[in-house]
């Protein structure tokens, strides 16, 4: 790390040990020194290499300090205009940010800062973002900020070509990863107008294969319903999907509703709920829906019994 001279800066020291202070913090000497300098430089709005270095040190001890990100951005914007190679300069800044990102997975300022840098960059590249996105998702496969940032990139670069395969890989690793399932829906919503019937049929097969593998998994069932609703004007799959869902509920629909002990196990409460929702929409199959909800209440998903009774009331 380059050493800069701050000896000419008159620090703005932080006030400590106030009499009526709440949550007084036992500051370290280093923190007091850094903050004293940072406050002085922000106040002067000094846009210099040494100020840039100082923001990195502050971010290291206090990444939640929102003004420091703003200050750093203004320094970068200023120095970029003075540098000979803007692209190189901004890429170096992105490299620095990658390191900070790895050390602060839950900080959300990082992602909006990154967006600002890409908007400033003369030739931004999605490809350059992929390694850090991969590392962050490998570390926490359901990190909401990282997924949101990936989606922002897709929209910013108008590039969705890797998304379906990427989501498939993550579902392969963890079939319960709901973020990966919702990422598929994000893909379809944005690709809606250019998708062929063959691709849609393949996707339906993909969903059914995954459900077959693990029937009691809420993510693909929710996705299936959303997918059907998104493309309901183009494809008539109802009977195929209904037949498929029926394979997970055994013959419970034809059995009398007795005590829970008398009812057999079924493979998936979500299949039963999916069918109930489907049947409830048509007066001819409404009785089936009522029965399916009753079964959920009695045996297959009893914690939500009052919800299932509420659904039955809605049907009547």
């Amino acid at each position: 790390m380059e050493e800069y001279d701050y000896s000419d800066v008159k620090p703005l020291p932080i006030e400590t040990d106030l009499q009526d202070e709440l949550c007084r913090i036992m500051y370290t000497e280093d923190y007091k020194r850094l903050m004293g300098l940072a406050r002085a430089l922000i106040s002067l709005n000094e846009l210099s290499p040494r100020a840039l270095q100082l923001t990195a040190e502050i971010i290291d001890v206090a990444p939640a300090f929102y003004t420091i990100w703003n200050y750093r951005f203004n320094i970068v914007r200023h120095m970029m205009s003075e540098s000979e190679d803007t692209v190189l300069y901004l890429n170096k800044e992105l490299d620095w940010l990658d390191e900070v990102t790895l050390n602060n997975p839950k900080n959300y300022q990082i992602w909006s800062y990154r967006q600002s840098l890409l908007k400033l960059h003369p030739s931004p590249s999605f490809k350059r973002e992929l390694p850090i996105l991969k590392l962050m998702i490998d570390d926490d496969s359901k990190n909401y900020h990282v997924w949101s940032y990936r989606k922002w990139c897709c929209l910013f670069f108008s590039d969705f070509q890797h998304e379906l395969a990427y989501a498939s890989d993550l579902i392969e690793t963890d079939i319960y990863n709901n973020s990966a399932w919702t990422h598929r829906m994000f893909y379809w919503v944005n690709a809606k107008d250019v998708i062929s019937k063959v691709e849609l049929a393949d996707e339906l097969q993909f969903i059914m294969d995954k459900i077959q593998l693990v029937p009691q998994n809420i993510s693909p069932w929710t996705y299936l319903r959303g997918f059907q609703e998104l493309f309901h004007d183009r494809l008539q799959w109802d009977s195929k999907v209904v037949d498929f869902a029926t394979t997970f509920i055994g013959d419970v629909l034809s059995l009398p509703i007795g005590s829970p002990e008398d009812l057999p196990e079924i493979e998936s409460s979500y299949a039963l709920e999916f069918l109930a929702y489907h049947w409830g929409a048509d007066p001819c199959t409404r009785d089936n829906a009522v029965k399916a909800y009753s079964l959920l209440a009695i045996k297959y998903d009893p914690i939500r019994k009052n919800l299932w009774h509420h659904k039955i009331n809605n049907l009547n």
Partner: protein
Amino acid sequence: MCQATNGPSRVVTKKHRKFFERHLQLLPSSHQGHDVNRMAIIFYSISGLSIFDVNVSAKYGDHLGWMRKHYIKTVLDDTENTAISGFVGSLVMNIPHATTINLPNTLFALLSMIMLRDYEYFETILDKRSLARFVSKCQRPDRGSFVSCLDYKTNCGSSVDSDDLRFCYIAVAILYICGCRSKEDFDEYIDTEKLLGYIMSQQCYNGAFGAHNEPHSGYTSCALSTLALLSSLEKLSDKFKEDTITWLLHRQVSSHGCMKFESELNASYDQSDDGGFQGRENKFADTCYAFWCLNSLHLLTKDWKMLCQTELVTNYLLDRTQKTLTGGFSKNDEEDADLYHSCLGSAALALIEGKFNGELCIPQEIFNDFSKRCCF
């Protein structure tokens, strides 16, 4: 809380009070990273103490002078000399010639002042017009959403900050505290229609709210509370409301019926989470989501307590994440208690008891008293 006064009880009230009190005292240097948002620590502690019936205004009244110092008013360099004002989270952030007030710290400070019953402050010192003007400047004209702070030099909405449902909620809550009630009141400062458009754009296809169709109970609570404060819940379609209620109730983790099949395969499932709430599909239950989900349900239906069988979530909180030795609540049973989860765990219990204003996240009685005293 009433459980505490009913003789032997599972709520370790005294320990919780001590836990929250500790956070208002001297903190070790490991808290330096939170220094800039110290107002959040103050809010969570004072809210927690208020829930457990501590008379915070008597106990911490001596600190009002210090609290008030966090309020900063800046005259803009424009022809009309207009002013903006708001709070910084820490005096460390009070930097000459730089605008450092932000929306979250402003809301945390205002709510803390309400709980400390500093009514004189609201009636005579706080400049509500310049405060509302600050909120107004945080709205993004293109999307209708809000960022949390302004550029420290230009005083325009910060271009390096994110905008999401949290900041929309905070912006509207601040204006509500400043006295805005009708659409006309809000329209005086913000583009309410545009904001509503943004909130509607965050609806997910299967119910609930989130970014890009990934529903999240925290964002859902923010969206619904914002709509409630704007008296605009009726803008949601009946189908969406029903889907959202269903989605929220599905967040209650169960170890019964078919759910038990998940225990061997799903790495984010734990049978002992039974009764607790998760933030998203296929995640562990977590104390804070009990509050976010219950608050959302309570805004959507008067039958919320019956629908989610509140005794189950109460058991989850008291038997699994309440820390009977140290006081406070943890995120889950593996970690130590922390301030955020302690405040929201307590808030969830108070909401169930009908004693909590979930939209503003303070005890209902305190809000009622404030409304009676401070009619703007």
